[in-house]
């Protein structure tokens, strides 16, 4: 079944991991974080009655880490092989598709186990304080194992569906959400109350992982607490019977294992079918032409031609059917979700929906802003544009204008919805909501500049996206710093002045970045293809 075996794949994967340039730094950072957590927890563990709280919080943290790291580490493992053309070389050997998938999975399992082992010294701390029963331990371990298996399944599945790294990451987390928290998915809430009481570990209370909070105690020391603090002391757990306790865990573990096995089988089948490069078939091309061509083709063509005459780079953002689908598809999604939320009995649903849609819009806008330049850098198209007589200013203006235009309908829709929600529902939120709306507009105006800048400075999509948001969130403060006491005084007066400070901050920072970008692009100071 596994052809030449799985060991060569595991070996290669582990070697690649060992040679990853960031690896030693991440390990060192992780070790430092571990030591810090150990010191904080060791101090807290001495407090009477904190054993169970510590146990809960450590396992919440571990679960979050599994959910964050396992899909991220797995998502690109097969996608990268396909992207770099090495998957085909593996298929030239006696290795089989299941062998490759199992080998990759084993390598990821080894990495996950290493991560877990690194946490073991910290995991032992709660036991020093007592209060943790073997049942708690078993429940936590099973939950972590289930989470790890489901995250692994999500990552491997995502990795077989695309060769685009960014898309693979997004898909991995989406699939993880479906597997772990989706309505039809696997629910941790069903793991609660293995003891027949309402005092199961905080992780499962309420059905979803509770956030971990940190707060400073009055004497200045940092302590860790969660929502369960302040509740009556936990009564001794009474295990009703061993079968009643074990059965739900066994069922959940079995389901997770089955999901993983089915996913791996599918992944093997999928890469076997799709490892060869295939050009789009005539049928695919005709489908794209038929269903992704605008209804008012002539009007759109004229409009696009005018855009191309004015600035070819602005046209680049709009020419493809994918850009048009994302532009209007996003609007349609927003309208549908808001209609569904308005229809609901709870008026707060709309406010929550708008907040959620804002997050979706922010992610899409950032992705579009960063990915465009990154793709052009990778393909070499940017180099070709730069050796044409088109000026750097035209390139930047075209890029920014194109992004503005693509996301303008969605932004207007959301800002209008937010405004409507807060004016129609008096208790929907703070009276300062329109400060947020102004911040949204400021971000809308300036994100393309920061995203373009970051896309030219780093090659990693996620790092570029993270840097973009760091700059965007820091920009208002930079603005306030710049206009000094004047802005602070204005901000103290009330929302209008704060809005002004935010706008000035964002626009001023964007202006500085624009100037720097312009100068560096003029000098061709960036490493290209």
């Amino acid at each position, binding site marked *: 079944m596994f052809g030449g075996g799985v060991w060569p794949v595991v070996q290669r994967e582990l070697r690649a991991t060992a040679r990853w340039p960031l690896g030693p730094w991440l390990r060192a950072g992780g070790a430092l974080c571990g030591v810090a957590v150990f010191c904080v927890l060791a101090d807290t563990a001495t407090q009477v009655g904190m054993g169970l709280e510590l146990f809960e919080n450590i396992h919440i943290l571990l679960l979050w880490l599994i959910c964050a790291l396992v899909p991220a580490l797995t998502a690109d493992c097969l996608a990268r092989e396909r992207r770099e053309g090495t998957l085909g070389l593996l298929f030239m050997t006696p290795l089989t598709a299941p062998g490759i998938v199992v080998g990759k999975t084993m390598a990821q399992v080894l990495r996950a186990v290493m991560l877990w082992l690194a946490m073991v010294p910290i995991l032992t701390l709660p036991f020093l304080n007592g209060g943790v029963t073997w049942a708690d331990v078993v429940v936590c371990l099973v939950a972590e194992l289930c989470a790890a298996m489901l995250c692994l399944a999500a990552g491997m599945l995502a990795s077989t569906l695309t060769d685009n790294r960014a898309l693979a990451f997004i898909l991995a987390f989406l699939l993880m959400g479906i597997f772990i928290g989706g309505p039809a998915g696997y629910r941790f809430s069903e793991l609660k109350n293995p003891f027949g009481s309402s005092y199961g570990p905080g992780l499962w209370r309420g059905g979803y992982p509770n956030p971990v909070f940190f707060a400073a105690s009055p004497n200045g020391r940092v302590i860790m607490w969660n929502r369960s603090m302040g509740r009556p002391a936990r009564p001794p757990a009474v295990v009703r019977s061993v079968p009643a306790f074990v059965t739900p865990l066994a069922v959940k573990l079995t389901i997770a294992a089955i999901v993983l096995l089915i996913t791996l089988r599918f992944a093997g089948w999928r890469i076997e079918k799709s490892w060869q490069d295939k050009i789009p078939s005539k049928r695919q091309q005709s489908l794209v032409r038929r269903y992704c061509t605008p209804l008012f083709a002539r009007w759109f063509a004229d409009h696009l031609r005018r855009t*191309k005459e004015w600035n070819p780079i602005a046209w680049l953002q709009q020419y493809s059917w994918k850009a048009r689908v994302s532009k209007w598809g996003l609007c349609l999604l927003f309208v549908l979700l808001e209609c569904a939320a308005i229809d609901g009995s709870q008026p707060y649903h709309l406010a929550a929906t708008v907040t959620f849609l804002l997050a979706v819009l922010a992610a899409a806008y950032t992705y579009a802003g960063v990915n465009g330049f990154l793709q052009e850098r990778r393909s070499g198209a940017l180099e070709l544009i730069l050796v044409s007589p088109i000026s750097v200013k035209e390139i930047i203006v075209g890029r920014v204008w194109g992004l503005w235009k693509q996301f303008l309908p969605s932004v207007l829709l959301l800002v209008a919805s937010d405004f409507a929600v807060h004016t129609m529902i008096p208790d929907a939120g703070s009276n300062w909501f329109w400060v947020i709306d102004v911040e949204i507009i400021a971000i809308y105006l300036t994100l393309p500049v920061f995203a373009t800048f970051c896309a030219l400075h780093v090659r990693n999509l996620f790092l570029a996206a993270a840097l973009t948001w760091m700059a965007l969130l820091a920009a208002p403060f930079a603005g306030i710093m710049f206009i000094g006491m004047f802005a602070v005084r204005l901000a103290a007066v009330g929302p209008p002045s704060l809005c002004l400070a935010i706008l000035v901050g964002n626009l001023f920072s964007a202006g500085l970045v624009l100037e720097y970008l312009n100068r560096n692009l003029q000098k061709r100071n960036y490493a290209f293809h």
Partner: protein
Amino acid sequence: MSSAPGNPPISAPPVPAVETVHLTRAYGNITALNDLNLVINRGDLFGFIGSNGAGKTTTLRILATFLAPSAGTAKVLGHDVIREADAVRHVIGYMPDFFGVYKDMEVTEYLDFFGACYKIPTAQREKTVNDVLELVGLAEKRGSIIGALSRGMQQRLGLARVLIHDPKVLLLDEPASGLDPRARIEMMAILQELQRMGKTIIISSHILSELQTLCNRVAIIEKGKLIYSGPVQGVRDQMAAGLIYWVVTQGDSTRAVELLKARPEVTEAVAVDGQVKVTFVNHQVDPSFLPEALVSGGVKFTGLWEDELGLEEVFLRVTRGETQ
């Protein structure tokens, strides 16, 4: 200026299309290009030869205004690549060693986009796109998605993109790599046609046999230094260690070997498969002494010819394949 009546006409001195003076480019501690002095005349089909990492692509990228030199100057049609970069970009067509395509665009969309980047008026653009597609043999693929084109066709599309604004100087980095033999021959024919149209073409390639027949001038570069620049014919004379002749003798060749070894013009004479290989000390030696010496020594011979060194052999002799 005209020549005086009765005197033979004075040919106009060649006008340089590309000129580099002490051109140097360093990446950190590595000097990719070291004091390159090069003159390429207008209308030349100029071959740029070197091992991987020798500095060919760096030179072309500097000439394409994409890379700033660390020292020295470079001019294209009299425009400095740094101070007059915009003017240079209007007169050059740069084809890098990668495709740089938008795979989800149609062929005509792609060319039209670059036409717009080069500010070609809309009315003229459609005709220009059709013309260049005809020229590179892609007319039938004008509506195809670029991602669906083969590697060779994408290469042709790259050439069509280079020609879209009718540049006077073409900088082509490995234009024939990855092409099948027929496509390569067609590509070379297109380049010769472009040369006839008066364009200056600088082509970097590893297929030296083709450069030998295609180019009128070549430059050999190694470790960032220029080893030779001049006519293709001259490279053999200047760079090869010594002139080689082959003599086919009747009967035993030992006598011929002894006779020739005794001559001061000959560094080596060896019998190889019944023939005698004679290596002269240099290219200035007049080989006419060879038949006289053999006849006077009583050696009968039936054949005598000069060993024609190809560009590949010369390249292998003068370079060590060292990279940086």
